């Protein structure tokens, strides 16, 4: 991302919403200078498997592969470990526990035991909660944990090889520019 793209991101962020921009730009917030964990795996294999399933619920396989095929659980492990502040790491980890409790309360079983339809119903409610929270919070307050999960899933999926080349379109070396390129509904977006 060079200056032109950065400027575009800033202008769009301030004019609307961009998912995950906080991982690339510091927009009006200053992350904690404390050092985050870095060595070794941040989540255990069970949690990574859970994150894969959670990601798949947010972006499931349709006519194209979903988040699990893009290994978003492992991606989240790396991102939360290396890029999140200790504060956000805590919120994310605690959020997973809270969702587990909430899921048991609402569905009577753990997220992993739920059917795809039950998972979707549960996460649809979670997404409504995060939206309401994100709209009312002050800029200094941290993001909602479900917002973090959703952002990481989207970033991890759409920038993965599976996401970029199967769900979206990707050309490494376009070789030319056409600013009047035909588009019809259903054509895929470019990955980059």
């Amino acid at each position, binding site marked *: *991302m*060079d*200056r*032109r793209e950065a*400027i*575009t*991101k*800033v*202008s*769009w962020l*301030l*004019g609307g919403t*961009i*998912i995950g921009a906080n*991982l*690339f*730009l*510091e*927009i009006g917030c200053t*992350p904690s*200078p404390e*050092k985050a964990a*870095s060595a070794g795996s941040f989540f255990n294999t069970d949690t990574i498997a859970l994150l894969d399933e959670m990601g798949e*619920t*947010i*972006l*499931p396989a349709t006519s194209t592969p*979903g988040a699990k095929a893009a290994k978003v659980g492992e991606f989240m492990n*790396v*991102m939360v470990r*290396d*890029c999140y*502040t200790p504060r956000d790491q805590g919120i994310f980890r605690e959020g997973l526990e809270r969702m587990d409790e909430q899921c048991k309360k609402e569905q009577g079983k753990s997220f992993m035991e739920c059917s795809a339809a039950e998972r979707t119903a549960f*996460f*649809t409610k979670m*997404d*409504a909660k995060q*939206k309401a929270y994100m709209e009312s919070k002050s800029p200094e307050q941290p993001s909602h944990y479900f917002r973090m999960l959703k952002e990481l899933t*989207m970033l991890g999926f*759409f*920038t*993965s*090889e599976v996401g*970029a080349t199967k769900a*979206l379109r*990707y050309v490494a*070396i*376009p070789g*030319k*520019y*056409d*600013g009047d390129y035909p*588009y019809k*509904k*259903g*054509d*895929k*977006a*470019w990955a*980059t």
Partner: protein
Amino acid sequence: MAENTYDAIVIGSGISGGWAAKELTEKGLKTIMLERGENIEHIKDYVNANKHPWEFPHRGGRTQDMIKDYPVLRRDYPLNETNLNYWTVEKDSPYTEIKRFDWFRGYHVGGRSLMWGRQSYRLSPMDFEANLKDGVAVDWPIRYEDLAPWYSHVEKFAGISGNRDGLAQLPDGEFQKAMDMNVVEKHVSARIKAHYKEHRDMIMGRVANITEPLPGRTNCQYRNKCWLGCPFGAYFSTQSSTLPAAVATGNLTLRPFSIVTKILYDKDTKKAKGVEIIDAETNQTYEYFAKVVFVCASALNSAWVLMNSATDVWEGGLGSSSGELGHNLMDHHFRAGASGVAEGFDDKYTYGRRANGIYIPRFQNIPGDRKRNYLRGFGYQGSASREGWGREIAELSIGGEFKDALCEPGQWRMGITGFGETLPYHENKITLDKSKKDKWGLPVLAIDCEIKENEMKMRKDMMEDGKEMLEIAGLKNVSTYDAGYTMGMGIHEMGTARMGRDPKTSVLNGNNQVWDATNVYVTDGAAMTSAGCQNPSLTYMAMTARAVDHAVKELKKGNI
């Protein structure tokens, strides 16, 4: 001593230094180019240039370790994992911020020519006359006509793509075929033209990305990964352009890891006889000798070298007799503008990633424009594109429908950002901070500058004029923004050794010679007497080529 003697020394290897080396060596001078950082070899050392997005573990983002290690770079977009090795290691090279100053540096062969934004515009006759007309600072000692042939000279070699738009405030040059606007940009451009007639224009950006091959260089492949280094050599950099030309003459010696600590001044001849360096790897000191020295270390570091030189004659260093060395620090202020949604183009998209955008040349304080409550003005850069997967979709939250919707492009949006002129204020300055030392024990710079009322007023118009134009163009939901600006963020440092007509009020004369040592030429951003609002690198190229021509003629005449 003989093996350390050359005809010319060039300090720095970025855009200006590379040009100095090319021109000097092509005119037959044995030249050594001293670069403080490591070598980065063209193509071979562009280690990330051919990676796919998914090959970066954090997909191009920033880790907490990076945030900790780069307390300055983190303040804006440059901190990222894709080209981290092109940015200066901050703990080795600290500086003092009396007021916040975001100094984004590149210490390696090629300097910031590897990561620059590549927008390439000439200053205009009105820019060179502005200080005199407004009674600001001092008059430029040159006029547009002095530099025009040199703009042509550097444009032809560097390869600038763009249209000849026939605008007085943005002179045309020797351009390669322009890149294309997309459908929305063309639409907005036509609406602006229809409404404002000859008073405002939205043109295609003029950019140092080639659209037609040049020797050893392939035309732009529309990957938009320029700042990783281009394996096609499609954009101008020292590595792709000036360095190979200089090497081809057989007259160039390139010495990386060479931190110039001072220019060696000879009191008897009143000229420089060479430079002293520290080898950045071994900490050994060496001296190099030459008939002429080109200082191209970037505006702040060029002033630093001068401040550290001949201090036994002038306490403030070589070129300080006017009291202006280190003063008049300028940048371009930006990050304020407008954006909106373009409807009616759902059957259109783009193919290819164009490393360029549109440009709206300055229209303020130009005949035909309304009265403004500030001097000078600003231009806009921007582009239109369809939204990607990062957007919100109001009626969908998660699941298959949500995913499939994000796999299609969203609505068209267009955003524009003003780039404004900063006036040269004497009190905006750098000084040596001898209480703080860098990794090599050298004193660091203390930076003390800020934008003032003229710039703040301009920022309001960057928003309001932007909104007005986008609305006139028919865009919907137009909103304005000011994302905040601190000096330095423009990465266009200028003015710390300004040119002028009088040695009492300027550091350099009209040929970029230091008044106090005429065989020392400063030809980077330090030389700028005013800033214009155009991206300045092309002007440094032209000034450098002109100054080399002067130096070589003067050497032949025995004047220096």
